């Protein structure tokens, strides 16, 4: 999680050199963002390394495609770069990033719908282009857990429980109120619980599970 800084990323991840370089700079994303606005490339690079894994996971959970997630991440950073002046010092930076990421994803989703309506698929394109790793296994597992949920509930649950954002931050990122976020989380849990108990029942009946 971003809150714990890059240390946690290094504890279990492999990018030790990258992480220590970031720690030398500054791991406070708000301060990095202000430096990025001032035209500091090192801060921009640090921010890209710090935020991208979270945004990438967010896209994978939403699209269940690593290739789409890569494209969306690039597009999001281009958009972030274009509107970086809209971040104001003192405001929480995570909701700002996620609001833009959501905007890019929704645009992408609408474009895909439009293309799908006009084009005929000739062959199945393999969805998983990158080499699967232990981390991507976890992300795929997460995507699988959240897959049955409607998009709005999935994104809220992911931001809140996986990324560790507060209710207020999720509300800001999704342009909604705290009450509405609470309601979506409640419904998401209900949905998952129903689905899990139904799956358990079916497995029990078929003799797979005792």
């Amino acid at each position, binding site marked *: 999680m971003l809150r714990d800084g890059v240390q946690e990323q290094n504890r279990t991840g492999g990018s030790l050199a990258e992480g220590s370089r970031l720690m030398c700079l500054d791991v406070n994303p708000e301060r990095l963002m202000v430096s990025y606005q001032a035209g500091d490339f090192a801060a921009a690079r640090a921010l890209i390394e710090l935020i991208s894994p979270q945004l990438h996971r967010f896209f994978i959970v939403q699209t269940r495609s690593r290739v789409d997630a890569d494209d969306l991440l690039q597009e999001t950073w*281009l958009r972030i770069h274009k509107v970086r002046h809209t971040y104001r010092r003192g405001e929480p930076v995570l909701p*700002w990033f996620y609001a*833009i990421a959501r905007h890019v994803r929704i645009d992408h989703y609408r474009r895909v719908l439009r293309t799908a309506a006009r084009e005929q698929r000739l062959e199945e394109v393999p969805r998983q282009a990158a080499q699967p790793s232990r*981390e991507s296994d976890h992300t795929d597992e997460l995507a699988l857990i959240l897959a049955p949920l409607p998009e709005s509930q999935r994104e809220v649950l992911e931001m809140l429980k996986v990324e560790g954002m507060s209710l207020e931050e999720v509300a800001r990122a999704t342009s909604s109120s705290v009450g509405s976020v609470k309601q979506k989380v409640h419904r998401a849990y209900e949905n998952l619980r129903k689905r899990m108990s139904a799956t358990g029942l079916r497995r029990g009946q078929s003799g797979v599970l005792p």
Partner: protein
Amino acid sequence: MNDALEKAGHVPHQVEPALLDRISNSIRPSLRPVHPLPPTWVLASGLVLICAALGLAGAARAGFYGIERMVLSERVLIFSTLGILAWIAAREFVSEWIPGSRRRFTPSMLLTILSAALLTVFAILFRDYHTNHFVSVGVVCLFTGLLHAIPAGLLGWLVLRKGLAVDSVSAGVVGGALAGLAGVAMLELHCPNFEALHVLFWHTAVVPASAALGGAVGLALRKRSRFSS
């Protein structure tokens, strides 16, 4: 279930370094210092001033017959309510243009609050339920109000054009509602018709009509950007 989700959050997710390099390299050539947008209160004050200026300019052109007929308490109650509502709507409109801003109201909730507040104030102040040429006179007021709302909406967009509206329809509805208040302000300054039903229906209708217009513009812009991408 909770544990599974939180565990997933603790496992670091890796992005290919080549992808991060590509992203960094793509932004490097255009990396220049930028000035952040002014604080919300500055932008909101600008929007409220635009609405007030347009309302005043319209009434100055058409005549201040409405405010001249009002007693002091009516003037104070109507224009202070309009001021407060314009401030609330302006803050929400600014929030629509700044990603990750706090939203106090959804667009539909804001529209309900604005309409309900205007209806309440008008219902308290105007008690003459006799009507004369309800539709023909009312339509003129509605169009006059909308005619002043449109430039207010356009000027509001000019003030905030450097922002990013993450949902153009919501931004259109909220901006339209704010612009509609400029139209109502103009009508209150100008319109000498104090029949309760006229004011309650046709003057208040400027706000939802203008919000609908703003929402339609937002929808058209969204469709245009979708087809141009």
